[in-house]
């Protein structure tokens, strides 16, 4: 049955209404908890709090002033309250690109190994959850101890690296701690994706004489791709919002400052206009990256909803699977 015909028939039996019904709780909740505060923040980012101090009482003159895009301008020119924006922007980008790339490779490798493990599967599955499961309030402190000037990391490598001073080593410390925590996350999701692949697909490949490498590139990876892409996409979103790890590990070092930290910092100084502006800029930056990612790499994660023809590959996969199933 062609997709189009399927769709036409589907519209007829009230799919739109059903879809609305099924999706509305999710959308309502997201609108309340995220959407509403987000709208407030966008509005807030166009204002600056009063900072005129009354010379006799010392009280701050109350009242927000509408400043248009001034907060954004400050951020982009790294001037005034916006100082440090570009440093944080590049840190965020570095942590995201390097971190997520390494996590993805490690995570996929872990998943492939776990999928083939015959023994001790319980142990290995338990252990892969560990980095992910230790609460950040504890793991950040643990990494602090590990990266101490006289800590175990330096004892193991036999020289004293001052991890928590300004410089590349501070960025490395953040990356190590972050990759450690999140590679298992990608591994876990990819493993689930691998488990959903029908084994007969592999057998068919085997019969066709495909070697391991070919099997991986031509069969495994494309089949696991939708799931992997979702995992990587959400890792991107999380990495770009990275906050507590560099905050606890490096404190105020410029080397670890991310855009989320700038927003938090501005908020803690009650400069809510600036904090919101940072948050909105970060939001737009993440949107951009997400759109590029989804369009460029993982176009098939969204699906065929807009009526455009499906990419050739997934369709072929579908028929393969169909043909093999009883």
């Amino acid at each position, binding site marked *: 049955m062609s997709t189009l015909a399927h769709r036409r028939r589907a519209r007829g039996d009230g799919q739109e209404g059903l879809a609305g019904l099924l999706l509305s709780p999710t959308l309502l909740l997201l609108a309340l908890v995220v959407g509403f505060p987000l709208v*407030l923040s966008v509005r807030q980012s166009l204002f600056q709090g*009063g900072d005129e101090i009354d010379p006799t009482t010392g009280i701050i003159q109350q009242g927000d002033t509408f400043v248009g895009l001034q907060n954004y301008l400050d951020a982009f020119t790294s001037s005034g309250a916006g100082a440090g924006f570009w440093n944080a922007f590049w840190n965020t980008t570095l942590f995201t690109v390097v971190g997520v790339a390494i996590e993805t490779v490690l995570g996929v490798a872990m998943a492939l190994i776990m999928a083939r493990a015959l023994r001790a599967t319980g142990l290995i599955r338990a252990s892969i959850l560990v980095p992910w499961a230790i609460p950040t309030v504890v793991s950040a402190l643990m990494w602090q101890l590990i990266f101490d000037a006289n800590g175990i990391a330096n004892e193991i490598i036999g020289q*004293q690296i001052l991890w928590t001073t300004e410089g590349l080593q501070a960025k490395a410390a953040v990356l190590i701690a972050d990759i450690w925590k999140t590679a298992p996350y990608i591994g876990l999701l990819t493993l689930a994706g691998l488990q959903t692949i029908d084994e007969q697909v592999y057998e068919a490949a085997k019969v066709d004489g495909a070697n391991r490498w070919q099997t991986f590139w031509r069969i495994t990876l494309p089949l696991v791709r939708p799931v992997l892409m979702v995992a990587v996409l959400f890792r991107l979103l999380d990495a770009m919002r990275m906050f507590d790890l560099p905050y606890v590990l490096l404190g105020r070092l410029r080397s670890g400052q991310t855009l989320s930290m700038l927003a938090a910092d501005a908020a*803690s100084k009650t400069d*809510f206009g600036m904090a919101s502006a940072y948050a909105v800029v970060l939001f737009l930056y993440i949107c951009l990256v997400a759109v590029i990612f989804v369009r460029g790499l993982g176009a098939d994660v969204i699906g065929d909803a807009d009526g455009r023809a499906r990419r050739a590959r997934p369709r072929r996969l579908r028929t393969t699977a169909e043909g093999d199933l009883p």
Partner: protein
Amino acid sequence: MTRSLPLTTRRSALAVGGLAAAAAGLAACSSGGDSGSSDGGGTSIDLEERGPITLARGKDTTGALADFLSRWNDDHPDEQVTLIELPESADDQRSQFISNAQAKSDSYTVLGLDVVWTAEFAANQWVVALPEDTFDLDALIPATVTTGTYFDKLYAVPFTTNAQLLFSRKDLLEEAGYDQPPATFEEMWEIVAKVQEKHPEINGFGSQYAKYEGLTCQLTDVVASAGGEIFDAEGAPHADSAEATTALQTLRDGFDQGHIPQEALTYKEEESRQAFQDGKLIFLQNWPYVWDHFQNDDGSSQVVDKVQVSLVPAVAGEGTSTIGGANYAISAFAKNKGTAVDFIAFMTALEQQKAWMIETATPTATAAVYEDAEVAKTFEFLDTLKSAIDKGVSRPQVVKYGDVTQAIQEAAYSCISGEAEAADALAQLQEQLTGLVES
């Protein structure tokens, strides 16, 4: 008496304003919402307003606080105090206070504020001016009362205080032929050089030089002992004075000449405490809490009975420490402020102050406890501590403390880590500070 009225009007104004006004209220200072409070913190609070209240502060593990509260609650069945424990980290405590102030929540009544937050909380009217007559301020150490005062009004009553001290390795000093701890950095460098002749593996001096609040304390106290000040009494910055430059250069020299180890750039309180406790430092500047760790004879300390306490080293003249500690203030958005005032008076009364100091080994703000024989038994260096607090200097009391302290840390760190020269770093700091107090 008039205070409760504007508060009520303000609430109903918000209620009528609906979504738009409420949305504006996301900021501390919404244009419509706060117009009724232009009387500022000047008016006295309604002492008749009574009933249950809360105390929001960090946890106490000693049980002393629980004891105080149960005594208070037994005596005041209709004005019970409930403890709201906040996280251990001062930054987390601060963000909880600010979030609640933003939301105008009445959850917290009495706030345990760090001494450096007074100006900001007062200027934003998150805390109310307190009736000074109700508290026995004369009984408190004057340097501590200063930390709770803003524009000549009392906004927070000192509960605890603190001052840093110099901890020296008595055994090493004696071996090198010194019977007194050094009073100045210069003397200290001399002793370090002498001791290291025999013990090259032991580092010289350590204090808190990581880029965090502790570094602001360090710069504040060396500048003070050099005879300068970062802000004068009128609130004008003098970060680029000759004294300040000398002071910062002294620290830089310490690093350059190896008297302060490079790893001190990662030191916060606990890191530096551990290094000294492991016998890796000759001198340590830190808060008094380290003493009990050093004297712990369970094998965890390498310096039991080898430690001597004195005032912190000076650039010139006498060593001056930054004042630390916590004050009690009352949230502007809370109910039953009358009860809160009485409760703060209770907490800062001599009996509680003395018990707190003995139980928690944290210095309290009341002068008389330092004369007390029982207290003297728990603090071997009580006189030194008292004189350190008396001479203590406050960190800048400015509204934009968050920006100011970050600028100070940035400047100090860039100099001691060798990135910038003292004069340049301070000239830039001066420029930033001027911008911050002017805007």
